[in-house]
């Protein structure tokens, strides 16, 4: 007993005060991309060739980047001869709309979108891993540790879909998980939400061209919140949830 108390004191208080205080992110973290309004050199399409997930498109006014496909590897930014594409350290990437994930020089990504007042104080989610690689799942799970303390925001991952306000789907939805994903959604009472966590769930991510996957939950169900990343940083996921609840700053 004495050991338990002593260790408790030694381990200290570690919960972050988010969103009041900005989270500490590593120097090399790649967050929300920005695209400068500079015309590309004629004929240059180096970034397109480097992208493993075809997240870039060349428009007349420059490249447009789809965060819903992006795995945030930074290959495009490294190859760009004039630094048109830059990844900032802003972890806030979530959006209520699919179009809000597309970033170009004329449109830095739309506002995250309107909150749903009904869920302002309480959000219960059933997490469904549908062929996720366990990175998105792990970064959802970590929110329940004392650092993030998910419960203090009124958010919880629950065991039964009957107790849930919606599902948080990770992974590209393999054919083998299609029915189970739809069944889980069907078991959630109305009004219900679908949250796509990670590039795979939004667009299929790196598995977009696999014949065994369905290009994400977006291809099967209407999605209420998109949280891009591969995997999204836990702070990005929490920011997404709080955006939906109308409690993000």
């Amino acid at each position, binding site marked *: 007993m004495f050991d338990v108390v002593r260790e408790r004191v030694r381990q200290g208080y570690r919960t972050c005060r988010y969103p009041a205080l900005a989270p500490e992110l590593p120097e090399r973290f790649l967050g929300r991309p920005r695209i400068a309004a500079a015309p590309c050199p004629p004929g240059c399409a180096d970034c397109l060739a480097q992208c493993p997930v075809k997240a870039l498109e060349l428009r007349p006014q420059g490249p447009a980047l789809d965060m819903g496909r992006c795995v945030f590897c930074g290959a495009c930014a490294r190859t760009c001869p004039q630094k048109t594409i830059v990844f900032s350290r802003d972890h806030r990437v979530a959006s209520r709309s699919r179009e809000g994930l597309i970033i170009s020089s004329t449109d830095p990504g739309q506002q995250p979108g309107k909150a749903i007042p009904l869920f302002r104080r309480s959000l219960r989610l059933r997490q469904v891993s549908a*062929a996720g690689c366990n990175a998105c799942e792990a970064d959802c799970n970590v929110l329940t540790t004392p650092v993030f303390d998910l419960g203090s925001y009124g958010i919880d991952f629950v065991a039964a879909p009957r107790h849930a306000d919606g599902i948080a789907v990770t992974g590209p939805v393999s054919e083998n998980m299609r029915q189970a994903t739809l069944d889980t959604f069907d078991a959630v009472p109305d009004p219900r939400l679908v949250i796509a966590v990670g590039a795979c769930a939004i667009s299929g991510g790196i598995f977009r061209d696999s014949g065994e996957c369905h290009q994400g939950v977006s291809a099967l169900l209407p999605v209420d919140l998109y949280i891009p990343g591969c995997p999204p940083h836990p702070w990005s996921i929490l920011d997404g949830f709080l955006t939906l609840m109308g409690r993000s700053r």
Partner: protein
Amino acid sequence: MDFSYRESVDLRDAPCLSGENFAVEVQACIARGFRVGAFFGLPHGPEDVGLVAVLCPEEDGNLCVLHSRPLTSYPSMSPTCAELHWFEREVHEQWGITPEGHPWLKPIRFHAPARSAFGEVRPRPLPGQTSYFAVQGPQVHEVAVGPVHAGVIEPGHFRFQCLGEEVLHLEISLGFQHRDIERMLTGGPDARTMHLMENAAGDTSIGHSFAHCALFEALTRTEPAPRGQMLRRVALELERLANHTGDLGALAGDVGFLPTLSYCGRIRGDFLNMTALLCGKRFGRGLLCPGGTKLDVDEALIAELRKRLAAAHRDARGAVDLCLYSNTVRARYDDCGPISTNAARACGLVGVAARASGLARDARVQFPVAGAAPGDIPLSKCESGDVYARACVRSHELDRSADFIQRALNALPEGKSAVSTPALPPHRMAVGIIEGWRGEICHVALTDAEGRFAAYKIVDPSFHNWFGLALALRGQQISDFPLCNKSFNLSYCGHDL
């Protein structure tokens, strides 16, 4: 044909055996003390598929590769070599090659067959829809769980045959995570290849991408940059620290010992954040490349890493000792889910589970990567094979990995972090073997006439070990399943690929 795990071979130099001779040779090798590293189908043409077996010695030494002519059936080896039963089912499901006399040929991933089995078109099975082992009798009942589980966890289907609380048998049916990674890798390498490696099992991003790099370097005869190689090894041990800490916390949580659960959840993140210092991503994505590492570190970063590691290791030690020295925890861990040394050897366990059952299997010792001394991370082993042993192996490895990282960062070789690699040579085969945090990761690739991947086989440690979990639960209480499961903590997507 014998060959070094760090070199490549031309499979055409090895005798192409008939199905019968192939089975005889593989079993003779296993009888000599080899174990199965990889076993897979190799397409020779659109309708011709042969078998390849890569066998690993129990002690350090050369690997042995055997391959067969294109065939449609061969004598099953599962009745004499239990560790092959899962592999034979996999090859049958993928290629329609029948192991004659296999005890129970069921699908393991429930995917569409890669080709029609020699003209006969098989319908795609529905996931989890197969015959299951069933126990009959009064008061015997069946508990079915999944694919969607109660927590934030990957999907899988479990069937328990129970008599009261006692589990007579557990059958595990997977495949829900199948994404067809191996097929996506053939024809590569391309811009996607490293990303697919990092996504094979997200919690083992470093392990799988390291195995791929080792394979790539063996194929191209490249010596990786010493600095990059050391940074990769640091990242690999950081991955081990993070996951072992998380597992030890989760084990404590499953017996209701909450202080360790809370602390370890946070400390796991501290280790992940150290990996993020290296490359910006908590799971180490984008750090490794064939030839070394894409990113380098400077003195300030090294100092920061060493400072954080010392603090996180001290915290982890305190949190884990609290639990392992608690009598109530010991009472639950002891004798729970035991696997004997013989059983572990027979079903081909690797990694933490094997070492907890007294098997000295650690690729860091048996197959050290280029530039590594075989003993610079000593092997941690226990004998009892129960949950306590699997916890203790992890606990020992926390100290040994942390100690290694401190030494490595203290004496990081000078120079560039990566060397450039040439294009892949045609018609070569090589392996990449890395001790990931769960156990031995084995990648095998063969190149075609143009130097592209004609076949790429990934064997995640979970592929060897899932059956071990089923075995561990025999005769245990069903309420101990979460604890046993966590003590293995196997990957669903690493198995399903």
